[in-house]
């Protein structure tokens, strides 16, 4: 690869809006320095990653462990509806479901958050009240992210004002894929600032990043820029949250905490539909980053149909016989 000398490379003119945590203070001082840092991250062995997740996927989780896994997974769900046809009524019924996923069983935990478009965050906030279920809103011209920065920041502020306490932003994949890593970084920093108190989840849209090496680089950009969570996908692009991608992102958050002391959460989203998929992710977490992340504060599932499957499995464990889709709510 030819390195073009960046005119800013030697002049520390603080293009970045904020400075990353030590020991990475100087990696964002220029485009070329940032590129050199990101391309200097260890390469990902794709075959090895696939083999590792395939092996972890064979773990058999049964009886009491399964019951624990199902309840844990329910408490980690970001119950999501991101359709053009979303209505306030639909968001209210989703909120009701979030607070009482299984109305026939009070021991069923509530989900972590309801995830909606920014304009409906107010409806969700009102419906959820002080139940403890968070309101997550997607912003920054979700899902494509193709808008000017001013529009994206206005989108974020609007969602926060409407009552969202978690913001799911998308990175500028166009900038990332054309190598303008610092642009991606600065945008995340700006969004983080616009979020104020709200937690920021950074969606990498890994289905568009092509390689696992890119996934690792994008993860580092998001973490250095101050993202509280890194999230795989919007759910609008296939493939979405695959296990090898999850493994690479989890290794990134693990390495980042070792280096800087700051813990970043992880949220796979899109394509996780069955209890088995969810359990595979829990196993992956436990084996990659450990128990510290097995908590709704640090790990979420972005999902819609997953919750019903979890509830069906939960009913199966509770009653001893198979349940059916007539016994959970339609959403």
């Amino acid at each position, binding site marked *: 690869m030819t390195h073009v000398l960046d005119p800013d490379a030697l002049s520390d003119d603080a293009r970045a809006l904020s400075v990353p945590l030590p020991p990475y203070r100087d990696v964002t001082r220029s485009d070329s320095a940032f590129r050199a840092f990101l391309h200097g991250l260890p390469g990902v062995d794709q075959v090895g990653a696939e083999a590792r997740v395939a092996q972890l996927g064979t773990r058999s989780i049964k009886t009491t462990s399964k019951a624990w896994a199902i309840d844990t997974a329910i408490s980690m769900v970001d119950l999501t509806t991101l359709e053009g046809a979303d209505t306030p009524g639909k968001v209210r019924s989703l909120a009701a479901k979030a607070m009482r996923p299984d109305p026939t069983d009070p021991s069923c935990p509530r989900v972590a958050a309801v995830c909606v478009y920014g304009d409906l965050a107010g409806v969700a906030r009102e419906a959820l009240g002080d139940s403890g279920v968070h309101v997550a809103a997607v912003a920054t011209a979700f899902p494509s992210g193709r808008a000017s920065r001013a529009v994206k920041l206005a989108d974020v502020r609007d969602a926060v004002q409407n009552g969202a306490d978690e913001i799911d932003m998308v990175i500028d994949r166009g900038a990332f894929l054309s190598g303008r890593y610092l642009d991606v970084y600065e945008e995340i920093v700006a969004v983080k600032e616009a979020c104020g108190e709200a937690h920021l989840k950074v969606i990498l849209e890994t289905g568009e990043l092509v390689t696992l090496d890119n996934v690792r680089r994008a993860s580092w950009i998001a973490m250095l820029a101050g993202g509280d969570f890194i999230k795989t996908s919007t759910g609008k692009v296939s493939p979405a949250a695959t296990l090898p991608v999850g493994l690479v992102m989890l290794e990134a958050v693990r390495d980042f905490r070792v280096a800087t002391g700051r813990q970043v959460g992880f949220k796979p989203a899109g394509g996780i539909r069955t209890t088995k998929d969810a359990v595979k992710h829990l196993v992956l977490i436990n084996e990659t980053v450990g128990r510290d992340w097995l908590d709704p504060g640090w790990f979420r599932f972005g999902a819609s149909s997953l919750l019903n499957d979890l509830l069906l499995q939960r009913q199966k464990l509770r009653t001893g*016989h*198979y349940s059916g889709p007539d016994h959970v709510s339609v959403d």
Partner: protein
Amino acid sequence: MIGNDRLAVRKTYKLYVNGAFPRSESGRTYEVTDAKGHFLANAARASRKDARDAVVAARGAFAKWSGATAYNRGQVLYRVAEVMEGRHAQFCEEVAAGEGLSASKARAAVDAAIDRWVWYAGWTDKLGAVLGGANPVAGPYFDFSTPEPTGVVAVLAPQQSSLLGLVSVLAPVLATGNTAVVVTSKDRPLPAVTLAEVLATSDVPGGVVNLLTGDAEELGTWLAEHADVDGIDLTGAPLNRAMEFEREAAGTIKRVVRPPATEPDWTADPGLTRMTPFLETKTVWHPIGL
């Protein structure tokens, strides 16, 4: 040149679930013997998870099958009978071996099974007229009743009559627009396996019929309890367990067909008795215009 020293091709049959032929999830198989105890083939022994998968497949296929026009369902079922006719010799051989019948009696049983299938195929578009209609009411509105399929029906097929009995319990479930999860005769499953191959190569959509070879006693309880099964035909259930299955089925208010004390003569005219149990009557009140 093939001499007499040719090695026998020993068959290990699989299940028929969602239009495909998977092995049992459990990996279990059992030996199927003829009436004299000689080895015939290996069959998959379905487990509770196979039953669960079959119910999911049947539920998935229900909307399309029940939503098809009655005429179309009749055509599809008639096509099954055509393909069965093409496999006539194979059915005869399997029925003769499994049930220990003479060649002529086996042929008569297969003929009757195919005729029975055609007979039920003809019923699809006549049920509405026979079982439903306009009800006479004293008021300014119409009132119609129409028979509608119940949903996913689990069928424990007869243990003795391996083809005619199977067709006699399966075809009425399909003709009325239900989808089926069938547990075949345990000791005589081969005609059912061949029927699965017939279904797979005819026009019946995958998942409408799911055939599980194995033990009705083992699988019956899971199907009877399953909340996503709407009806269960206990014809092939072991008599000492049938009451228990019925009680379990009551937990989710399933339609139940009780097993007869002994297997009936399947050649007799079945009438409507096997079609009505898995139909719901929908009655609609409709205002008269003007």
